[in-house]
C-alpha cells in the first residue's frame, strides 16, 4: 500500500508545481512554461521507476505461497482476457524476480458487479501461481470491498472471500448468475426434509451457496470467483507453456508445491526422469497419492530395474497410501528382484488382494525365493493376529 501514499505525494507535488506555474507572471510563464512540466515528468519517472524496483510494491491481503511476493522486482504485461459477462478485458502481468525467474501472474481487476441493471465497481488485485491457480488477493487503498448495501467488508469477510477463491471446486462453478436467486429453490425447512436430516441434496442448494459466500456480497463473490477461475487459467497455462524451459523444470521439481512438481513431472522425458530421480524419490515419499501414482506410472522400465531405485521405492512400502501400495506391487514385474524380498517384510501391511497379487508374482518369478523371503512368509503365516494367514498357508503348502 506504500506505493499509493507515495502516489498521493507525487500528485501533491505536481499540483504544487502547477500552482507555482500559474502564479507566475504571464510573460515569464511562457518562457519557463516547460520547466515545471519537465521537472514533473522527470520526478514521476524516477518515482515510478523506483517503485517498480521496490520489493514491497505488492502487498496482498492474503497469500498462500511463501516469499514470492517479496522477491518481485519486475512486471511484464503478457496478455489480456475478456470477461464475456461484462465485455471488459483485463490485463494480466507476469511478475518476476531479479534473476528473470517468473514468480506469479497478477491482475488489477476493476469490474462492475451488477444486479438488475444496478452496478457498483469492485477493485481488487489477484495473484495466481504460474499454473493459473489462485493464491491470493489484495485490496486497493481507498477502495475497500463492500457489500451490496454499501457496508464495508469486515475482517472475517475478507477471510471468507479468500477461502472461497481458494476453492476450485466451489458450488459457484456450476451456477449461472440467474441461479443465485432461484425462486423455485426449496426453502430452508424442506432441505432438512421433514425433520430428518440429509447431508445436503444432490447438486447445489441455497444453503450450500449461502454458506460459501460473504453474506450480503453474493454477487461480488460470484463475479470475482468466475473471473479468477474462468478462461484466464487456460491463457496462463498457455503462456507458461510458451516460456517453459529446463530451468523452470528444475525450479518446479525442487519447489515445495505439489502442483509445480506434478507439472514438471508431466513435462519430463525419460532422460530427465533418470537425471532427477533422487529428487523424484524425495517427492514420492512426501507427495499426495495422485502424484505418487503418476510417478510410478511414468518411471520407465529401465529405471525400475535399477537396484537403487527399487530399494528406495519399496523401502517405504508400509508408509505410503493403500493405492500406491497396490501400484508398487503391480510394478514387481519390472522391478529389481530385490523388491520381492523387501516386500516380504511388509506382508502384514497388505490388503487381501494385494497379498494375492504379491503371492502370484512370487509364484511366477523366475528367481527362486530367497531364504529371507521364505522366513518372513512363514513367520507371518504363524501370526495369530494376521487376518490373511490362511492365504499364506495355502501358498506355502504349494511351495513344498
Amino acid at each position: 500500500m506504500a506505493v499509493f501514499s507515495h502516489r498521493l505525494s507525487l500528485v501533491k507535488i505536481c499540483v504544487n508545481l502547477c500552482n507555482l506555474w500559474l502564479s507566475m507572471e504571464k510573460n515569464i510563464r511562457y518562457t519557463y512554461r516547460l520547466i515545471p512540466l519537465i521537472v514533473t515528468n522527470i520526478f514521476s519517472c524516477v518515482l515510478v521507476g523506483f517503485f517498480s524496483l521496490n520489493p514491497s510494491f505488492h502487498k496482498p491481503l492474503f497469500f498462500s505461497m511463501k516469499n514470492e511476493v517479496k522477491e518481485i522486482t519486475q512486471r511484464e504485461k503478457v496478455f489480456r482476457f475478456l470477461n464475456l459477462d461484462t465485455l471488459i478485458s483485463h490485463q494480466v502481468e507476469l511478475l518476476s524476480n531479479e534473476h528473470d525467474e517468473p514468480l506469479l501472474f497478477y491482475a488489477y481487476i476493476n469490474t462492475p458487479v451488477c444486479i438488475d441493471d444496478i452496478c457498483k465497481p469492485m477493485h481488487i488485485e489477484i495473484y495466481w501461481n504460474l499454473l493459473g491457480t489462485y493464491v491470493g488477493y489484495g485490496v486497493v487503498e481507498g477502495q475497500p470491498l463492500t457489500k451490496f448495501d454499501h457496508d464495508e467488508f469486515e475482517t472475517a469477510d475478507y477471510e471468507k472471500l479468500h477461502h472461497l477463491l481458494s476453492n476450485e471446486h466451489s458450488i459457484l462453478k456450476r451456477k449461472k448468475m440467474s441461479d443465485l436467486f432461484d425462486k423455485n429453490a426449496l426453502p430452508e425447512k424442506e432441505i432438512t426434509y421433514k425433520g430428518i436430516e440429509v447431508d445436503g441434496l444432490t447438486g447445489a442448494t441455497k444453503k450450500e451457496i449461502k454458506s460459501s459466500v460473504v453474506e450480503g456480497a453474493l454477487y461480488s463473490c460470484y463475479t470475482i470467483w468466475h473471473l479468477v477461475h474462468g478462461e484466464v487459467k487456460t491463457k496462463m497455462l498457455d503462456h507458461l507453456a510458451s516460456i517453459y524451459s529446463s530451468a523452470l523444470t528444475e525450479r518446479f521439481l525442487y519447489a515445495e508445491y505439489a502442483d509445480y512438481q506434478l507439472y514438471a513431472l508431466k513435462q519430463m522425458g525419460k532422460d530427465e526422469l533418470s537425471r532427477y530421480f533422487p529428487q523424484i524419490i524425495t517427492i514420492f515419499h512426501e507427495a499426495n497419492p495422485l502424484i505418487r501414482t503418476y510417478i510410478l506410472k511414468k518411471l520407465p522400465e529401465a529405471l525400475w530395474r535399477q537396484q537403487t531405485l527399487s530399494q528406495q521405492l519399496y523401502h517405504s512400502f508400509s508408509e505410503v497410501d493403500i493405492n500406491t501400495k497396490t501400484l508398487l506391487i503391480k510394478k514387481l514385474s519390472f522391478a529389481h528382484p530385490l523388491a520381492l524380498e523387501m516386500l516380504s517384510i511388509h506382508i502384514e501391511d497388505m490388503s487381501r488382494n494385494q497379498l494375492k497379487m504379491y503371492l502370484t508374482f512370487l509364484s511366477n518369478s523366475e528367481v527362486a525365493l530367497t531364504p529371507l523371503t521364505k522366513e518372513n512368509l512363514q513367520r507371518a503365516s504363524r501370526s495369530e493376529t494376521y487376518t490373511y494367514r490362511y492365504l499364506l498357508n495355502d501358498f506355502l503348502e504349494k511351495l513344498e
Partner: protein
Amino acid sequence: MAKTSLILITHLFLLSFIGLGQSGLLIEAESFPDKGGWVVDPQFVEQMGSPYLMAHGMGKPVAKASTELKFDQKGSYHIWARTKNWVPGNWDAPGRFQLVVDGQKLPNILGKTTAWGWEYAGIVEINNKKIVIELLDLTGFNGRCDAIFFSQSDQVPPSSPDELAEWRKTVLQEVPVPPTIKTYELVVVGGGIAGCAAAIAAAEEGVKVALIHDRPLLGGNASSEIRVHTLGIYGKYERILKMIDTEHYPNGSPDAKYDQQKRGRNVKSYENIDLYLNVRAYDAEANNFTVIHVDTRQTSTGERIRFKAPLFIDATGDGWIGYWSGAEYSYGRESVDQYDEAWDEWGELWSPEEADDFVMGSSVLWRTQVEAEPQVFPDVPWALEVAKDHEAVAGEWYWEFSRNDLHQIEDGEEIRDHILRAIYGSFSNAKQRPENKNYRLQWVSYLLGKRESRRLVGDHIFTFKDVTDLTKFPDSVVQEIREIDVHFQQNLEDENKPDFLSKALFYETEKYYIPYRSLYSKNISNLFMAGRCFSCSHLGLGGPRVMRTTGQMGAAVGFAASLCKKYGVNPRDIYEKHLAEYMALIESQQWKNR
C-alpha cells in the same frame, strides 16, 4: 384338507432345495420359508457361491429365521454352517449368530472365521423325523448364513469354490439343464430403469417379453431398496419413463416407496410382459456368437428356469449376459489419448496418461431419525478402522467407495461391507456427542448402488469426445443435457481424508447424443445392452449413467427389438437396413395412447 395340502407342497418345495448326500442334509439358508428379520442377499453369488441370509438389523438383533426339516434317519448329526466373519480382526466378530435345533440352542457361536467357510455348530441327537431349525441373530450387525449341513459323518464339506459348487450340485441332485424351459420373443435380464423401459417399449409393440430381476422390487438403483433418485432428461421417451422414474426426493428418502408402487403397477399392467422377480441369471450360453439361452435361479427356492429367445437385452448393470456369452467388454479408465478425452483443467483426476483399473465407486445410502427419547447405539470397534474419527448423522451420494485393489464385481461384498463399516463407525462417533443422543438409524441399504463396472463393447464406443464434439449421429436415439459427472475419491488429493468419500467433477455441455450402435454387442449377434453396461469409455459413462438416460437406452433397444422381430433380423441389421423406419418409430411412439 387345504391346509394339509399346503404344508405338503411347502415341504416338497423345501425338499427340492434340501439335498441328501454323504448321509447328510444340505439346506440353503435363503430357502427358509420363514425368514424372520433376516434378508436375502443375492448380490455376490458369482463370488461366494450362493445367495445367503443376512441379519441386517443396524445394531438390533433381528427376529429368528426358521424352517422345518424332515430326517429319514434318527441318530447323531454333526452340523456345519457356511458363514464368515465379515470383519476379521482383534475384536468380537460383528455378525454373530447361533443355531437352534428343535428348541435347543447350540452353544457354538457362528460367524467367526475369516472368509466364507464351514463353521462347526455342534452335534445333535435327532430323534424325531421333523425338527425345527432356527437362526438366532446375536448382534444385528450383518451376520450371514449361506447354508447348513447336517451329517452323520464328521467330514467337513469342501471349501474351495469349484469343489463346493460341484458338491452342492451333487447333494442337491441338480441336473445340468434347468428342468423348466421357457421361450419368449425377447428376454430382458435386469429390471432396473433400463430393463423396465426396454420391456415396456417392446411389449407395446406386441413383443412377448420376459423381464427377469433378482430382487422383489423393480428399479435397480432407483428402487426403494437402494433409493437413488432418477436424473437426466426424457429425450423421446417421456411417456414411458414417467411410468417408472422417480421424483427428486433426497437420495435415500422413504418417499421412494411411492414411485416404487407406481413402477410396479405400470410394468405389471402390460400383458406382454412376464415378470420374474427374485430370479437371478447365473449363466448364458452362446453358439456361433449367438446367445441361445440364459439360465436362472430363484434367489430363495433355487428353482431354475432356462430362458430361450431369438433376442436378449443385457440390462444387468454388470454386463453378465455379455460376459458369459463371450461379448467383448472393457473395465477401467482408458488412457487420455485413446479417445482424445482430455480436460486439461483436471488432468489425471479426469483422465490418466496411462490406462488403469480405476472406476467410479459404489454407494450405500442411509438415513437417521430423531426420536423423542435417547437412543442407544452399540459400540462398533470393528468399524472404527474404516470410519476413524469421521462423524455423520446422514449419508449422501458421495459416500462412495472405490480402490484400485478392489474390483467392483469380484470384490463387491468387501466394498459393501467396507461402506457399512464407514456408516456404523461414523454414526457411532457422532453418537458420542450429547446433542446426537436421540438419533437412531432409520434405514441403511444393504444393496450396493453401483455406478460403474463392466462396459460391453458395441459397434460404436461412446466417449467424452462425442460429448465435446456434440456429435449428431444418423442413429442418435438418446439425448442428454446434464453435465458429464465423474467422481474421484477424496483421499487421492489428501490421504488423510476418509477413503469412503468422493468428489464430483462436472463438465457442462449442450445437448449431446448417443447412437443406437452403442446399444448392441459388437460380436454377439443377438445381444442388446442398455444401462451402465452400454458401449462407452469410462468418461463416456460419466454423463449417461444417470437413470433417465439409461431409461432412454432401454426404451430405444426395446423398440429396436420389436423391429428385429418384425423382420426376423439381428440388432445390427436395424442400423444397416431399417434405420429410417426405426427412427420414425421412435418419433411416432411419443404420442401413442395405450
